[in-house]
C-alpha cells in the first residue's frame, strides 16, 4: 500500500493518545485493514466504519467503472473542516476519512470513514455526519462509464 492514508494511520498508531481527525485523498487503492488498525485503542468501546464502494449499476444503468476527480487542495481543506466539526459535535476519540481519486473498478472502495469513541451513540452519529457532509461539500466529482458506451459526470442538482 502506498498513498497518504496508510501513512496517516501509522501516525495514529505511533502516538496512541493523540486525539486526532484525518481526511486524506488516495490515488491508490484504499487499504481498509490498515485504516481499521488506526481506530483501535484500549480506551475505545465502539468503532463504526462506513465503506462506499463502486456499484455495478446506478439509476437503472449498468456501470463498468468510474473516475473520481478532485480539486485536491480544497478537498483536503474542506475535508479537514468536516473532521474537525465531527470532533466538536460528538464525543469521539478519532475520525478518519479517505476518499479515492482516479480510475476505480467495480467493487473498489470509493470512500472509507472510521470513527472510534467510548460509546456507540457518538461513533454512529459522527460516522454518519462525516459521510453526509463529505458527499455534499468536498469538491470531488464522479464520472461513470456505462455498458452502453456512454460516460458522464454526475452533478446532482443542489
Amino acid at each position, binding site marked *: 500500500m502506498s498513498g497518504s492514508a496508510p501513512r496517516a494511520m501509522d501516525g495514529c498508531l505511533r502516538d496512541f493518545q493523540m486525539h486526532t481527525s484525518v481526511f486524506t485523498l488516495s490515488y491508490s487503492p484504499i487499504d481498509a485493514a490498515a485504516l481499521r488498525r488506526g481506530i483501535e485503542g484500549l480506551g475505545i468501546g465502539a468503532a463504526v466504519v462506513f465503506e*462506499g464502494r463502486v456499484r455495478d449499476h446506478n439509476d437503472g444503468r449498468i456501470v463498468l467503472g468510474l473516475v*473520481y*476527480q*478532485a*480539486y485536491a*487542495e*480544497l*478537498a483536503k*481543506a*474542506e475535508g479537514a473542516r468536516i473532521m474537525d466539526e465531527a470532533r466538536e459535535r460528538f464525543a469521539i476519540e478519532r475520525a478518519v476519512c479517505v*476518499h479515492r481519486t482516479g480510475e476505480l473498478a467495480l467493487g473498489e472502495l*470509493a*470512500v472509507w470513514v472510521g470513527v472510534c469513541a467510548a460509546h456507540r451513540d457518538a461513533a454512529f452519529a459522527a460516522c454518519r455526519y462525516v*459521510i453526509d457532509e*463529505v*458527499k*455534499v*461539500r*468536498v*469538491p*470531488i*466529482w*464522479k*464520472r461513470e462509464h456505462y455498458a452502453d458506451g456512454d460516460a458522464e*459526470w*454526475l*452533478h*446532482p*442538482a*443542489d
Partner: protein
Amino acid sequence: MNYQLLYFASLRDAAGRVEETVASQARDPRTLYTELAARYGFNPTNTHLRVAVNSAFAMWDHALADGDEVAFLPPVSGG
C-alpha cells in the same frame, strides 16, 4: 489582470483544458464566469456552481487580485 483558472469535471471537458492563465478585465468571479461561459459554451447561469479563489470557497462578488487562482465548481458527487 491575469488569473489562473482551474477546471473540473464537466467544465474541464467543455473547456478542453485542466488549467490556463487568462487575461481579463473582470474584477469578480461573476464577471469572469460570464466571459468564460461565452468562450467555452458553459451554462450561462451560474446558480448551480460554487466559486473557489486561491483554494478557498468565495463569494461571486469577491474582489479578485492579479494572479488569483479561480475555479468554478459544479455540484459535487464524491462519496
